[in-house]
């Protein structure tokens, strides 16, 4: 047992000396490897962080949202439906919601416009999201004109800017009073965009949704769980697209690693021959090279992962946000909560470290099984 441990120690010593002897080559490989791990880790950390963040924010979303459908499309919901919904057994509160989208040609961005009854805003006041404030360089007490449905410019006074904690969902948000909203969009007074419901027993949300669909045949009840699934699917799709691209990068790296080791220099082959000639077995050579591969790949893994961690959780994932967050113009500026997922870590190890070790060991093994005399002659 002790001899076996000592053997590993000697092999590790030799490996470290061998790595330092070929500094330039190994540093180049280490840099390329670190970059690869960094890209994979950053995509994984960011997309999982976004999913977690979205799930946290949606905790406060209504359990059921009811829309009216017209010809399969979302139509305005008559105010009379609110009473019908209240009469369904199991339904708690019912609130009519007013919201829509506003296209701003100045910065070519879409805003989400919502009525916030609990903010007690005057008809000419609004609150804007932090992303919008940045993009239009607006602040509290500034005036912001929006073009109404009839073409008139409606001036609004900004009474507040939403804080950055909720920026994932509020970067492009405009909050208005009901009067201001109806004036801006010429919205019919007896209609709402949709209705938000609470249910008495959240476990029965799906049953109640079924009852709503029966009671109001033109309705579409949407559960909070379905919203979460949609977010998940969107992030998975984006993540998948990036992974396909990164997969090609991984393949390129493996080819590089294979080439580096398959094309062992004459000096390396000679060294393997010398080691075998003086009494090293093929398994000793392989163990030594395994140490080399592990040292290189684990260093790259650690460096790449920590760099990705810093980039995602402390630098706002600036390099990846445009692809993964998905806002066309108004990118939210927010900090994700750092979290370590063991399974995610193992998957990353599996897709970066294992292929490298396999790709490098095979050519080494081919060189190591040659007769020492042939290996030394090159």
């Amino acid at each position: 047992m002790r001899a076996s441990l000592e053997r590993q120690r000697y092999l590790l010593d030799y490996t470290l000396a061998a790595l330092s002897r070929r500094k330039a080559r190994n540093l180049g490989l280490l840099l390329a490897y670190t970059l690869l791990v960094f890209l994979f880790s950053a995509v994984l950390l960011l997309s999982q962080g976004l999913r977690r963040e979205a799930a946290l924010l949606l905790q406060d979303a209504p359990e059921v949202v009811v829309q009216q459908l017209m010809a399969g499309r979302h139509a305005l919901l008559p105010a009379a439906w609110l009473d019908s919904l209240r009469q369904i057994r199991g339904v708690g509160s019912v609130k009519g919601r007013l919201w829509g989208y506003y296209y701003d040609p100045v910065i070519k961005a879409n805003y989400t416009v919502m009525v916030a009854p609990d903010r007690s805003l005057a008809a000419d006041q609004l609150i804007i999201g932090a992303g919008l404030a940045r993009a239009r360089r607006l602040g509290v007490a500034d005036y912001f004109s929006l073009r109404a449905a009839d073409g008139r410019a409606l001036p609004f006074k900004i009474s507040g800017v939403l804080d950055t904690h909720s920026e994932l969902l509020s970067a492009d948000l405009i909050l208005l009073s009901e009067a201001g909203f109806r004036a801006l969009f010429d919205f019919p007074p007896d209609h709402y965009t949709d209705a938000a419901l609470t249910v008495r027993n959240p476990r029965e949300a799906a049953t109640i949704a079924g009852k709503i669909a029966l009671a109001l045949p033109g309705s579409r009840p949407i559960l909070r769980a379905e919203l979460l699934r949609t977010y998940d699917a969107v992030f998975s799709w984006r993540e998948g697209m990036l992974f396909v691209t990164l997969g090609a990068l991984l393949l390129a790296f493996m080819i590089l690693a294979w080439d580096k080791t398959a094309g062992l220099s004459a000096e390396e082959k000679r060294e393997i021959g010398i080691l075998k000639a003086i009494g090293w077995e093929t398994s000793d050579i392989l163990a030594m090279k395994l140490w080399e591969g592990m040292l290189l790949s684990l260093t790259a893994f650690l460096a790449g992962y920590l760099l990705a961690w810093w980039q995602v959780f402390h630098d706002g994932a600036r390099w990846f946000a445009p692809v993964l967050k998905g806002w066309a113009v108004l990118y939210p500026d927010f900090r994700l909560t750092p979290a370590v997922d063991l399974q995610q870590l193992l998957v990353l190890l599996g897709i970066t470290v294992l292929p490298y070790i396999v790709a490098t060991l095979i050519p080494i093994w081919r060189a190591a099984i040659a007769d020492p005399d042939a290996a030394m002659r090159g």
Partner: protein
Amino acid sequence: MIELREVSKIFNQGQPNECRALCGVSLDLARGGITAFKGPSGSGKTTLLALVGCLARPTSGRILLDGRLLSNLPERFLTEVRRHTFGFVFQQFNLIRGLTVLENVMLPAYPLGWPYRELVNAASILLDRFGLAAKASSRVEWLSGGEAQRTALARALINDPAVLIADEPTANLDSALSREVLTLLGELAGQGRTVLVSSHDPLVFDAAQVDRVVELHDGRIVRDAGRAREPS
């Protein structure tokens, strides 16, 4: 006792650059003493030593060590024999650059997993014996030819082999250093080791320490001045 029976070695067999390095060599090498293999470049001396030392396998024929057939042993057992029976001193020394003299001497024992202190002691005794104690922590690329030769000799002895194989041990040395090396080899033979050297240096095969001279030409033994039989 090492026995070679009709041993041949062909490199790149079946290819346009095929080369017959040894042709049907038969030879008995008794324990102890110094046997020198002489002959011009390309006569097959180095190949013969490589086959005896299990660094390569013969294309045909048999090699036996104390009656045990070596030529068809699996790689693992062959390494075991090589590690414990043979020590090598190569023509170009073949020291590992970037490592110190001490590390190079310790290198053959790494896979055996000796306790570190024990291994350093064994290597230090050898370095002391060959006058290299002061150079123990020097990198091998900084050594003179003579120092590198003695380092290679110390490395060959770290596992205490019964047979020392030295390929052209004086090729890179001046006459004074060559005599020094021959004296060292003589001492080792005097301790009961078998020493096999290849050389085309008259200083070696005319030396008093050498017990037997085997001459090769074009891969065949053409003269055997010693105790063994003449080639068939």
